[in-house]
Structure formats: structure tokens, C-alpha cells
């Protein structure tokens, strides 16, 4: 039986990347773009992507259908770990559809990502960017 942490890392490679993963692109607040994985520079940076959900507004009782992209990445695959400290803006590009060849749309990471440091993943919540007037 191997080291438990190594086993977890292997599981993350399977669940967040590999067949479940979709190619994503991260751009740091400094303008540095990451398209490839730190674990395998020949492979695109991959993440598990979820696209939408139904959210209830408890004050009005209204259901709001929102596109709620959430991505989960393996920390060891990242060059720089996003923290969103001091209001930093990270640009995230994800495919429009759950398909590797799908065109990408640009988003901004909207809140402090959940680290999952014990397990080794990071979760980022995204909001759409539109061209300002």
C-alpha cells in the first residue's frame, strides 16, 4: 500500500483531469497565462467544470436560474495558486460546452477559492465578463 497522499493525488488526476477534465486557461493578475499543466507540460491544464444551478432567493421566494460555472483544479498542476487577495482578478477561460474542442468563454474568479489543501484541490467560482460601454 503506497503513501495515502500519493494515492489521493492519483485520484485527483483521475477525477479532476483525465477523462473527466476539460481544458482551461488561467491568467494571473500579473498577466501571466498558464495553458499547460505543471505536472505534464505537454498536456493542457485541465479542470473539472460544472456549468449551472437553480438558486432560491429566500427573501422573495423567487427561483433564479443562474449559470454558475465552478471549476476544480489539482493544486500541483498550477504554476501559481489563486488566492484573490487584495481584490485580485484572475481570468479563467473554460469551454462553452462539456467538450474539449468547444470554444472558450472568458470569466473572472468571483470569490475566494475553496482551497481543499488537505486533499490537494482548489475550487473556483466564476462570473461572466462583458465588454464595458
Amino acid at each position, binding site marked *: 500500500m503506497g503513501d495515502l497522499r500519493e494515492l489521493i493525488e492519483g485520484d485527483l488526476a483521475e477525477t479532476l483531469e483525465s477523462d473527466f477534465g476539460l481544458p482551461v486557461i488561467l*491568467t494571473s493578475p500579473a498577466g501571466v497565462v498558464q495553458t499547460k499543466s505543471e505536472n505534464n507540460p505537454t498536456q493542457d491544464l485541465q479542470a473539472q467544470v460544472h456549468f449551472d*444551478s437553480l438558486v432560491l432567493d429566500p*427573501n422573495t421566494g423567487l427561483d433564479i436560474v443562474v449559470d454558475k460555472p465552478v471549476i476544480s483544479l489539482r493544486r500541483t498542476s498550477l504554476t501559481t495558486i489563486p488566492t484573490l487577495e487584495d481584490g485580485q482578478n484572475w481570468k479563467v477561460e473554460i469551454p462553452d460546452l462539456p467538450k474539449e474542442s468547444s470554444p472558450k468563454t472568458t470569466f473572472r474568479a468571483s470569490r475566494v477559492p475553496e482551497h481543499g489543501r488537505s486533499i490537494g484541490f482548489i475550487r473556483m467560482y466564476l462570473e461572466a465578463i*462583458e*465588454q464595458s460601454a
Partner: protein
Amino acid sequence: MNFRILNASIINLLGAAQGSDWRTIGYQKQAQGADKIKNGNRTVQVFYSGGIYPKSAGSLNGYTMHDMTFSLDLTVAKACTGDLATLDNPGSTALQLQTALANLKIAVHGADESLNELKELIYQEIMKGTNQNLGLSVPVANRWVDEFNKDPLQTRGELAVLTGSMKLTARMDEQMIGEVGVPLMVFDTNIEQDGDVIGRAGIYQEHDIVVEDTTGDIVLDPVSGNYLEAA
């Protein structure tokens, strides 16, 4: 009843004034797509939410005063805005990307500003002097926006969605719908007394009668009211 008439009038009033600034909905809407209410498609949902009928200001059999309450639910959705052209350009330098990222206006900021603006527009329209009767040609008393509450941001997603609620009150009278009464029957009475030869001793009130005085004829004595044989 007048609360329905006034409800429709408020909807028409806001609908006529919306332009491209908002959309007026005349009922409580269920699930709606956040992207459908983005920017200028933000919504104002108008509906009658309740009322009070003060017993001291009404009648058990006639009209009664109705203190109406209308809810105006405001909903906005905004995305983060920025220099997308630079961000999406594969040829942008690191410095250009850094500048564009630093100048992004986040979605919650835009949503907060949008809701404040919408609230101001609706309030001004409802409360301006020419709308004292809220679009009706009959008087509406005590038109007043009592309060406005902005809800905490609950949704986190691609778009920031923010809601608020405005309470509008007004007073009008409500008439009861009743049955039309049955018309009374009118009885024409004439009482005839025994010995009354010509049946004149009834309830009729007549003016003085001038009868030609002819001997042997029966004449009316204006003093006694009796008929006497003329001398």
C-alpha cells in the same frame, strides 16, 4: 373592485414609462433566467399584496374604505464588465492583460448600482405630482411609498442577481355590489260613505265649486258641504 382597477393602472403607468430602462411585469413571476433580466431587461413586478378595511371608515351596508398595499419587486442582474477585447486577444501582452484585469468592474458592484438606479426611477415615477392618482381619473388618497428594502446578495454565479422590494400604499373606497330593490306598488284609494249621492265624500281635496243657482235643483251648500234643494 377598485384595488384591481388601481393595480392595473399602476402596471400601465410603469409600463408606459419603462422605455428601455426596465420591464414591467404585472404578477409574481416564478423562475426566470438570470440572463433574461440582465442590464436593461431588469424587471419590476407589480402585484396587489394585501389590504386593510378599517371598520371605522366603512359601512356595513354601503361603501367601505380600503387601505391597499402593492408590492413592487425589483430584480436586476449584471455581469462583470471590462476590456474584454484586450482580455480575449491572444496577442495581448502581460502588461496589457494586467491592466485590463485590474480595471474590471465586478458584477456585484454593477448589480448594486443598477438596483439603486432602478429604485430611483420607479420611485420618481410613482411619486411625481402628475401621478397623484396613479393613472386613474378618480381620486386616490394617501398614495405613498412606505419603504424600500434591498435584499442581501444571495446568488453567486456567472451573473450577480440582486433584488429589492418597494411597498406602495393607497386608499380608495370600495362599493358593494347589491340587489336592485323591488318597486313599491301604489294603491289609489277612494272611500265612499253611505248617503253620499254622488260619491264625493272621499279623500280628495277639491277647490270651491261654483254651482249655478237654479230653483228646484239640487245645489251644493259651500258652507256645510251638503247638497240642498234650491229655494
